[in-house]
Every structure is written in structure tokens, then in C-alpha cells.
């Protein structure tokens, strides 16, 4: 039996019904007041993933294990004090101690992504803080279905790598959508558990024709009792969540992370 939670929402004032929604253990407020401080990470390696995406391997002076799915914030400061901050999901698993890897897709006119692509090389420092996020996370011990599009596959790859690093303790299935094989991130890392869906150009001899992700693609990936993690652009995430709901997946078994852009 779990110990009774010091759970304020359990009984509202005057015996009101509990507030709807969030799972009880998570309701305990963090209220640690422990601010995650900015730190200067050392760029150990820059790896080209595709024509538009690079992975930055960063050594952190104060590393703490993240939960796959969490992100860091990168801060750039100009000499006159102007600054820009953007969130980037961790791509590496927590077993990769002392480092994090961020994979950044270069956007046309992107203020931060373009600077990272043009300005950052091994030996440079980058100011970051994290890890953040307590919802779009997977600890590796419950069934998971991962559905990612474009750079939305980054936090899912942290989950996938964690799954492999910890001996595949729970069942995991994955669907990755990309425009073409050339734009597919982490292409050497997928196995039988992953369905690849190319929307514009397919590799030679591919049994799946080109086209958007469909219900027929996802149906064989469904797992009983799984949490479904959907990540990508707003249109991609909207499409993927509709497919899952259409296949009968309950809304409260779907978690969505949108990378803002269109």
C-alpha cells in the first residue's frame, strides 16, 4: 500500500470532489526553490546528422541525470546584453554520464538555430540550464509508443537510447516520419521496433509508398497499456494525435510535445 499522500486536492474545502486531472504523486509541488542555475557547457563534438541538423555534444560542469524526454534551455548573449533563449530536447540517454547531446535543426532565418550551425565548434562554450520538463518523460519501465516527425524525434531518441541502454525492460514501438531518407535523423539506430514513414521520397525498394503517416502505419505499433508520446511540429502532432484517437487510444494515454513552429 502506498503511504497516504499529503495530497491537498484529495479533499477540497467543504468536502468538494477532488479536482480533476493530474496523477496524485505528481501533485506534490516541487517548491524546492532550487533554481537550476546557468552553466557553461563545453562543446566536445559537433556531429552532422543531416544537411539541416547537427548534434552538439556538451560536457557539463554540473551534470545531473535527466529523464528521457526532458529539455535544456540554451542562452546566447550578445556583447550589448541582448539575449535569446530556446529550448532543446536532450537526445542522449541518462547513462551517458557528464554529457548531454542536443540535436538542432537549422531553420531559415532562425535566430538561435542558425547561429549554432554557423558559429559553434568543438572547444566553444555554450550557456545552458536544465533539465526541465516533468510531463513528456519516460523512465523506461512501462510500455511506450513513440511517434515523432522531423526534429520531434529528438526527445523520443533519448527514450529509445535509454530503452536500449537499460536492456529493453519494457516493450517499446516507434514511428518516425521524415520527408526523405536524407532528412531522417539517427538513421542507423532504428530496428524492427520502428516504422519509418517518408512523405516525399522513399528509398529504393521500399515496401511503403511515400505519403503521410496513416492509421494503418500506426495500428500494428499499438501496445496494451502503453503511454503514447507524440512530438513534432504543430500540424504533425495534430495529425498524429487524431490518428491515435481514431484507433481507440484513450486521450489520457497520449502525451504531446509541440515544437511551436508550423
Amino acid at each position, binding site marked *: 500500500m502506498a503511504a497516504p499522500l499529503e495530497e491537498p486536492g484529495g479533499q477540497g474545502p467543504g468536502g468538494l470532489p477532488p*479536482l480533476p486531472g*493530474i496523477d496524485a504523486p505528481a501533485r506534490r509541488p516541487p517548491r524546492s526553490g532550487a533554481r537550476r542555475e546557468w552553466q557553461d557547457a563545453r562543446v566536445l563534438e559537433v556531429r552532422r546528422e543531416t544537411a539541416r541538423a547537427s548534434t552538439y555534444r556538451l560536457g557539463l560542469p554540473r551534470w545531473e541525470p535527466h529523464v528521457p524526454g526532458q529539455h535544456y534551455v540554451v542562452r546566447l548573449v550578445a556583447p550589448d546584453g*541582448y539575449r535569446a533563449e530556446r529550448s532543446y530536447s536532450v537526445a542522449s540517454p541518462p547513462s551517458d554520464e557528464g554529457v548531454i547531446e542536443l540535436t538542432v535543426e537549422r531553420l531559415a532565418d532562425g535566430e538561435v538555430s542558425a547561429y549554432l550551425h554557423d558559429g559553434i565548434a568543438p572547444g*566553444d*562554450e555554450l550557456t545552458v540550464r536544465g533539465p526541465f520538463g*516533468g510531463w513528456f518523460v519516460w523512465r523506461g519501465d512501462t510500455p511506450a509508443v513513440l511517434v515523432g516527425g522531423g526534429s520531434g524525434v529528438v526527445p523520443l531518441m533519448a527514450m529509445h537510447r535509454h530503452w536500449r541502454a537499460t536492456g529493453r525492460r519494457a516493450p517499446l514501438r516507434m514511428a518516425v516520419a521524415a520527408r526523405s531518407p536524407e532528412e531522417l535523423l539517427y538513421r542507423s539506430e532504428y530496428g524492427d521496433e520502428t516504422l519509418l514513414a517518408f512523405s516525399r521520397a522513399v528509398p529504393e525498394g521500399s515496401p511503403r509508398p511515400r505519403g503521410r503517416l496513416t492509421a494503418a502505419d500506426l495500428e500494428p505499433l499499438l501496445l496494451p497499456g502503453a503511454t503514447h508520446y507524440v512530438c513534432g511540429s504543430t500540424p504533425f502532432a495534430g495529425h498524429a494525435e487524431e490518428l491515435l484517437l481514431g484507433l481507440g487510444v484513450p486521450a489520457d494515454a497520449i*502525451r504531446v510535445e509541440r515544437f511551436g513552429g508550423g
Partner: protein
Amino acid sequence: MAKLFEGRSRAGRDPRLPPGQYDVGGGWPVLTAEPTPRVERDAWTFRVDGLVDAARTWSWADVQRLAATTWRGDIHCVTTWSKLDTAFTGVDLDVLLDEVGVSPSATHVVAWSSTGYTTNLPLAEVRGGKAFLVWEHEGQPLPREHGGPVRMLVPHLYFWKSTKWVSGLRLLDHDEPGFWETRGYHELGDPWREQRYDGD
């Protein structure tokens, strides 16, 4: 040595942008944690309960009869985008709170949505014309992905406090952190003080 970061031209940096925010212009990003629910107007209700004289539930038709107001100004998301000079139409939350009679012991509210999402606010942050229930954006029905038919609008705080698909508000005599606040985000979320994460 990294190349010098200059950033986008700040000659034009708008003083209405809080630190660390950028202007999305005509865009309006959608950020949600769950699938977008389909809430029909006629099925939508809004309840205010907890430390009030008489709890009450309003229907869509009920709120349409209240005196509508249009708020125009800037909104700010914790993920660093801001949308400047944009208009929402709905009703001042004070109107609803006055109808139920707020008990003097109430200090905080928790808003919840039809998806079960919750967020907490000190009562003082939603009183005095600072918070609204809204159903129109720029004169058009509020789109479903932005919380339609009806969402909260608490424009002076980061936008996760502006509960989408809102379906109720509970008045409490203590603070009760909600969905993001129990997941590492700041208790209050004032964009001008960059209160993004716990401890900021």
C-alpha cells in the same frame, strides 16, 4: 572561439517584449500537452465553487448574456514567444466571482479544464480586471486548438496560466500547485520577472 552572437536586429526590439521573449508577429504557436479536445459550445459549462457563498455553473447561453468586454494587449508564452497587440472578447472574471460571492478566507484559485489540466493563481492575480473568460479572438470564435470554445485569459502572466477549454474555478484558502507547477514550472509566472521554472 565561437563567432560573436549578434542576434536579430534590436533596433526594432519592441519595449513591450519582456526579457528573453521574441515576437511571433501574426503567428500564434499552439502548445499543448494532450490531444486537443472537442468541446461543443452547448455542452460546455463553467463552474465556480470552493470558498464562495453559493457555487454556480454557467452554460454557454448564460455567459453570452453577461456584459462582454474586449481586452487588447500582449500575451507571453514561457517558451519565449510573445504576441503583441491582440484582442480577445469575453467576460471579466470579476463579474462571475461577484455573482457567487467570494468568501473573505479565499486566497487562491485553481482553474481546471475539461481535459483535467489545472493551474493555480493567487486570488489577487485574477481580481480587479486582470483575468477573463474569453470566446473570441480578433472578432472570430476562439479556435479549438487555442482553447475554444472558451478559455481563461490572464494576460499579465505566462500563458500556461490561461487555461484552455476551461471548465471551472475553485476558490481555496491555500495555494495548490497545478499541472505545470508540480512539474518544475514557477508558481506565479510573471514574464517581466522571467519566472519560468521552479525557483526562478
